[in-house]
């Protein structure tokens, strides 16, 4: 197991290098650079713009810029953001955390709702309960998350029960510890819902399908035949096998949530990585984009690795050595 983990981590290194190189090249071959915004400002002279070029080292050859960035990366430095004029890690640290909080919340919410819902639907197959769940799942699946976010925000503005976007209230810094937690939870409700509705619908259908498949197996018949109580048949024998394929999904779901939250973050003014990256890409803040890409990729890879390891732990048939 350890050897496998180590191998996966080693494979990740050239992959990350490739991603960073691709990002860098894409950012630099597309026309324009960070200083274009300043160029269109009547109050900046040519000399000042040249001065900035030197400061940001935009006057050096491309290869040299990239190698320098890699060199700094090996010293755990992610470079400077042009736009904010501070080291990149000072900006993205908090943003990564905020995105993580939102993703974790959406992830927990999705799984806590979808799994029981799927089981329930499977056990009540073709009864009105099941029909209703499937009907609403279809509807939920066909709504894009960002649209739901807007509907929720509009609803919140009409009722005034929930805060309208953002992560904290304006007076957050004056609240006590308990108040801060409640405040954060209240702000989490809308983006979490918007992110989860689609995944709940999808995951619930998967769970239902798996469960039905397992319930049709001979060993379930055997279990029932030998007179085990129904609860034990379902939760001990069937569930364990039905959930296995979903474990693979777990890591993937989580990592895709991290990257997929961007739109919802922007709509809900959630101060996460996604909204930061969008502005960075648009203003051509190269090193900030590269660092955010790198963070996103690492989170993605770690998510997948964890899923694979978890699968090996749960399913004795899987061995990686």
């Amino acid at each position, binding site marked *: 197991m350890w050897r496998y983990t180590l191998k996966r981590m080693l494979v990740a290194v050239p992959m990350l290098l490739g991603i960073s190189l691709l990002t860098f090249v894409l950012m630099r071959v*597309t*026309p*324009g*650079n960070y200083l*274009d*915004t300043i*160029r*269109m*400002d*009547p*109050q*900046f*002279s*040519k*000399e*000042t713009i040249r*001065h*900035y070029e030197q*400061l940001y080292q935009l006057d050096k050859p491309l290869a040299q810029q990239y190698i320098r960035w890699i060199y700094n990366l090996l010293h755990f430095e992610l470079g400077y953001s042009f*736009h*904010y*004029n*501070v*080291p990149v890690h*000072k*900006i993205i640290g*908090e*943003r990564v955390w*905020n995105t993580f909080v939102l993703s974790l919340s959406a992830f927990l919410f999705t799984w806590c709702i979808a799994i029981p819902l799927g089981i329930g639907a499977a056990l009540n197959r073709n009864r009105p309960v099941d029909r209703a769940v499937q009907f609403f799942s279809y509807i939920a699946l066909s709504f894009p998350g960002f649209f739901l976010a807007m509907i929720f*925000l*509009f609803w*919140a*503005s009409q009722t*005034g029960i929930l*805060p*309208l*976007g*953002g*992560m*904290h209230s*304006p*007076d*957050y*810094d004056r609240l006590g510890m308990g108040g801060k937690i409640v405040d954060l939870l209240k702000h989490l409700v809308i983006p979490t819902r918007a992110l989860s509705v689609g995944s709940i619908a999808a995951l619930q259908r998967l769970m239902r399908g798996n469960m039905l498949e397992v319930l049709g197996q001979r060993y379930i018949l055997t279990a029932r035949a030998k007179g085990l109580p129904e609860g034990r048949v379902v939760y001990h024998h069937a569930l364990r096998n039905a959930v296995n394929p979903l474990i693979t999904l777990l890591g993937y779901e989580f990592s895709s949530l991290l990257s997929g939250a961007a739109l919802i973050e*922007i*709509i*809900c*003014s959630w*101060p*996460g990585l996604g*909204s*930061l990256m969008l*502005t960075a890409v*648009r203003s*051509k803040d190269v090193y900030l984009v590269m660092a955010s890409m790198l963070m996103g990729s690492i989170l993605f890879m770690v998510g997948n690795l964890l899923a694979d390891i978890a699968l090996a732990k749960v399913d004795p048939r899987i061995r990686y050595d």
Partner: protein
Amino acid sequence: MVLATTSDPRSFNDILAKETSTSLVTDLIFEGLTTTNASTTKVEPNLAKSWDISEDGLTWTFHLREDARWNDGQPFTADDVVFTFNGLIYNPDIPSSARDIFTVDGKTFQVEKMDDYTVRFTLPVKFAPFLRGMSQAILPQHKLQKAVREGRFNFTWGIDADPAEIVGTGPFKLVRYDPGQRLVFERNPYYWKKSFDGDPLPYLERIIYLIVPGVDVGLLKFMEGTLDGYTLRGMDYPLVKPLEAKNNFTVYDLGPDTGSQFLFFNQNSGRNPQTGQPFVAPYKLAWFTDLEFRKAVAHAVDKEKIIEIVDNKLGYPQHSAMGPAAGFFYNPHVAEYDYDLNKARAILAAAGFSDRNGDGFIEDPRGNTVEFSLYTNAGTTERVDIAAIIREDLERLGMKVHFQALEFNTLVSKLTSRFDWEAVILGLTGGIEPHFGKNVWMSSGQLHMWYPMQEKPATAWEKRVDEIFDQGVQELDENKRKELYDEYQLIVSRELPLIYTVLGARLYAVRNKFGNLKPTNYGGVFHNPEELYMKEGYR
């Protein structure tokens, strides 16, 4: 008071960063020697209580306030002023747009301390915008000198700085910054300004700026009551206005905005140094440099329709290079081009443009179909809409227009370095000081977009505009200055290098809980944060 901004500040360092999201913060914290009165747009004393000018107009002596203090309690003195200029703005290691403003013909100003509360500026030549330019924020020597000496200034007072380190003389101080979320300001207890009755200012305890990237979410937040004020777009007006009484707020329409939107053609006769090809095909260049052609296009710009569609009927047609918001220097008596397609057709026909082969498109005298590409930047729906309206009318005149919305950076590199474009719709923000438009109007400027960075003026009228800007900057008599800038506005309205469209309206919605609110066109609704107070019952 809770307000909103769409993006994070870039820095808290007023010398290094100058865009809106930053100046929103720095304007509350820092002050200059002078300030611009928001209602009269005249220059007024601020950190300097008075000043004297020598006979020749070159030596300015400023007498500083003796009661001003930095918000950490240290006294403000002449040393801080000298430091801000000699130590920061004129420091060759610090990139700053302020240096461009305070450099005339490549020469800097001499700044000397006479005594603790007197500073003398000696200018190399007369410089009319000097007094207004003295609104440049003064920064504290005692906080920054060490960083400058150690070469760290370019990375000082970044967004990662401890708010307590950011020390200014202004009415408020920064106490907290949560990236992507909010900025919290508290009143500066050492602020020098007193109210009419002698009460210490400011009245407000706290100002909070929420960072809300989505404009629509911001509007919802205002309607719901989280925000106390919000900048409206024309399209929001019919939605928001009817709710004034019910939701207890007021919508202020403060007249035309300063930002202009215009169409212009590439008149660059240069060649690409690498390929030797002309930037613009010579036969097209002949149209674009033909004043009659540009006049016809100007008559095809339906300003009324743009105002109706883009600004929801809340806009103003723009005729002059300096809009009405420029106040004193605005010249309303310039050439105007009414929307009249028949007139446009007649002008084109007289200039030799007509549909000779009957294909529905007009040809120039040599038989080339009038066909060009029109760019604007994607992301501003306003400009894309304007482009669509203008294009429709140009096609009615028989021109073939290929419209494309480009990414902002792509468009900028076309305009400033590659020069391979034909027609563009773009906007610039304006101000009240005409000289600060010199990069646009002088033929050597890099924002002289229709033909930038000319070695010598390509046309007689461009030569005259160059002269006007050279004279205007040295003319200290306000009225004579106005005459000069009136002439430049008249010239460019006749020569049409930029074909202006419309100006949006400055609209704000403010909750009815503040006293001393004095909205003006120049300053907006919150230009006097130190005087605002919460009315009884809202505290």
